[in-house]
């Protein structure tokens, strides 16, 4: 098992290396540059040239890349061209907000998606199943930002059940420990802060969870239907096992294999959805860093963010592979 993990981690190195080249080249092929964006209206060709020289952007691309790579290997992703701060500090500050949102959304998607998918499969062709199939189709098709705005109007503005935006109310004076708003309240005993944070968390998490939820429901349903037709389920029934044991031990365990792959892939996509959701709910996480970075062509910040996203993706899929090996003994061999 340990060898398996180490091998997979080593495999991630070339992936990230190739990605770093692509990101580097892609950013620099975008029209405009940081100099133009920084100078704004006052930009003249001379000023841009001068600023590029200061930023080191006048050097040949390959030289810029190797300098960048050299610094990255020592853990230095450079400073943001917008704030002048180290991009890692910036990201470190914004990361807990995004992680909190993503994990909550993922939790919703998994905790609801697997039982719903199972329920639909065991009622195949009946109302509940048809309803789920159509409902999830709508869920997959609705864009995150549209759903986010809709939820905001209905549940925050009209009904007033949940907070419309931001992570915590301004009048809550919460102590920061970890940066996770819900967790900090628990750690410091400021339970009102935790409740307030949860009140803010619900709508964006629901918006972000919708697409992965719909996909997990559909994959679980399809996978359970496959497994129900397997010979070993018939064997389990022939043994006279109770329905509950057949479902839990024999059907669900096998059906979860494809579902775990899906959860891994969805976690990657969740990062993309988080950017949009954060924008709608003024969340102030990685999403706003990224959006601002793209507008202003902040190369160092974007490079760091994209590589970070890729690293998370690789890591999550490693976790999926490990869970696969834990569920299925044939993979371990």
């Amino acid at each position, binding site marked *: 098992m340990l060898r398996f993990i180490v091998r997979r981690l080593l495999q991630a190195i070339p992936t990230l290396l190739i990605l770093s080249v692509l990101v580097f080249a892609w950013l620099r092929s975008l029209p405009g540059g940081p100099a133009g964006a920084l100078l704004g209206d006052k930009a003249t060709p001379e000023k841009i040239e001068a600023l590029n020289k200061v930023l080191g952007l006048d050097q040949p691309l390959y030289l810029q890349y190797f300098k960048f790579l050299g610094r990255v290997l020592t853990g230095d992703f450079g400073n943001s061209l917008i704030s002048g701060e180290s991009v890692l500090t910036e990201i470190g500050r914004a990361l807990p907000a995004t992680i909190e949102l993503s994990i909550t959304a993922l939790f919703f998607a998994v905790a609801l998606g697997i039982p719903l998918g199972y329920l639909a499969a065991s009622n195949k062709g009946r109302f509940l199943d048809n309803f789920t199939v159509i409902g999830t189709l709508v869920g997959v098709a609705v864009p995150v930002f549209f759903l986010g705005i809709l939820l905001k109007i209905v549940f925050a503005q009209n009904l007033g059940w949940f907070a419309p935006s931001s992570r915590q109310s301004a009048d809550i004076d919460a102590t920061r420990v970890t940066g996770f708003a819900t967790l900090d309240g628990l750690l410091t005993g400021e339970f009102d802060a935790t409740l307030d944070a949860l009140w803010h968390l619900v709508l964006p998490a629901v918006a972000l969870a919708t697409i992965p939820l719909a996909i997990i429901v559909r994959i679980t349903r399809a996978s359970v239907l496959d497994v129900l037709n397997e*010979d070993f389920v018939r064997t389990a*029934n*022939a043994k006279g*096992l*109770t329905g509950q044991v057949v479902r839990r031990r024999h059907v669900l365990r096998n059906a979860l294999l494809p579902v775990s792959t899906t959860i891994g892939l969805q976690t990657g996509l969740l990062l993309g959805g988080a950017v949009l959701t954060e924008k709608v709910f003024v969340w102030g996480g990685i999403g706003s860093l990224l959006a601002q970075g793209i507008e202003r062509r902040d190369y160092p910040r974007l490079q760091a963010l994209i590589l970070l996203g890729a690293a998370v993706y690789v890591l999550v899929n490693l976790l999926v592979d490990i869970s696969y090996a834990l569920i299925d003994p*044939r993979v371990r061999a």
Partner: protein
Amino acid sequence: MALLEVRDLTVTFQRKGSAPFNAVDGVSFDVDPGQTVGLVGESGCGKSVTSLAIMGLLPKRGNRVGGTVSYEGTDLLTLSDRQMRDRRGRDLGMVFQDPLSSLNPVIPIGIQVTEVLERHRGMARKKAMVEAAGLLDKVGIPDPTRRLTEYPHQLSGGMRQRALIAIALAVQPRLLIADEPTTALDVTIQAQILALLKELVTDSGTALIMITHDLGVVAGLCDEVNVLYAGRVVEKAERHELFAQPRHPYTHGLLASIPRLDGARGERLNPIRGSVSDNIPWDTGCAFAPRCPNALEVCTQVTPPQEDIGGGRLLRCHNPVRPGTPAVEEVSV
């Protein structure tokens, strides 16, 4: 009274958009304790559906099961799902065709054996493990304690089938149904598995329903044979009688189509012409008529009734094979 009395068992498949179809059509037979009854026929003749109907394992939707299946006087077809679950594994055991797909790939063999003991004997896991090791030993699996912790893919085909037999016999059911238990195995292993089944059945007085298309299996194991064609029993006889003097042209054809090692060099094989797709419906005549070498005009016009031809033999044919037609020697296992 026989242990199991099957009377007029009829299974009708009702699929949306197609006409109802009788996969099993008025099948009747008895099984006494310690007796082995064979159900023989080609693929699609209804032998597996018969066994699944007895076990109550047919899908609930899309099928209608008629007739009676009485086990010690109780009609199994009238029992609820819960009552059937109590009986399956305890009163009726079943061994399936493909041992690899019939075992759950992600659960150790040990659990797959012990769960029957836990279910029907109320044994604790630890005690059941000891019992399971004994069972594996009894079916001839070497090093049983180690095998209990292994997964199906780590066992050979023969061992997997032995494990399935151990599972089916764990709670010593009084009736065992074996659905083509040797079809997926090597020829050398087939004989071992048949010998094992014979030994276990003889020792414990278990009644056995043997479902097979292989007349060699019938010759080696069965006391009484029911030959099925297109869902109906076309000939029923005691084993020696059947081999010595097949009366139905279909039975005769099955026996004649076995290639013989002691035949003359270059002797042609004798297949039965056509396939089950050439059948005509039973209510318009004899389903076998289009393939039958003995067919008369009446065969495609009048459904042949089932007749008692003496000596406990039943026959459904207008123009049976005449006694004295070159019989085929009994094949022994």
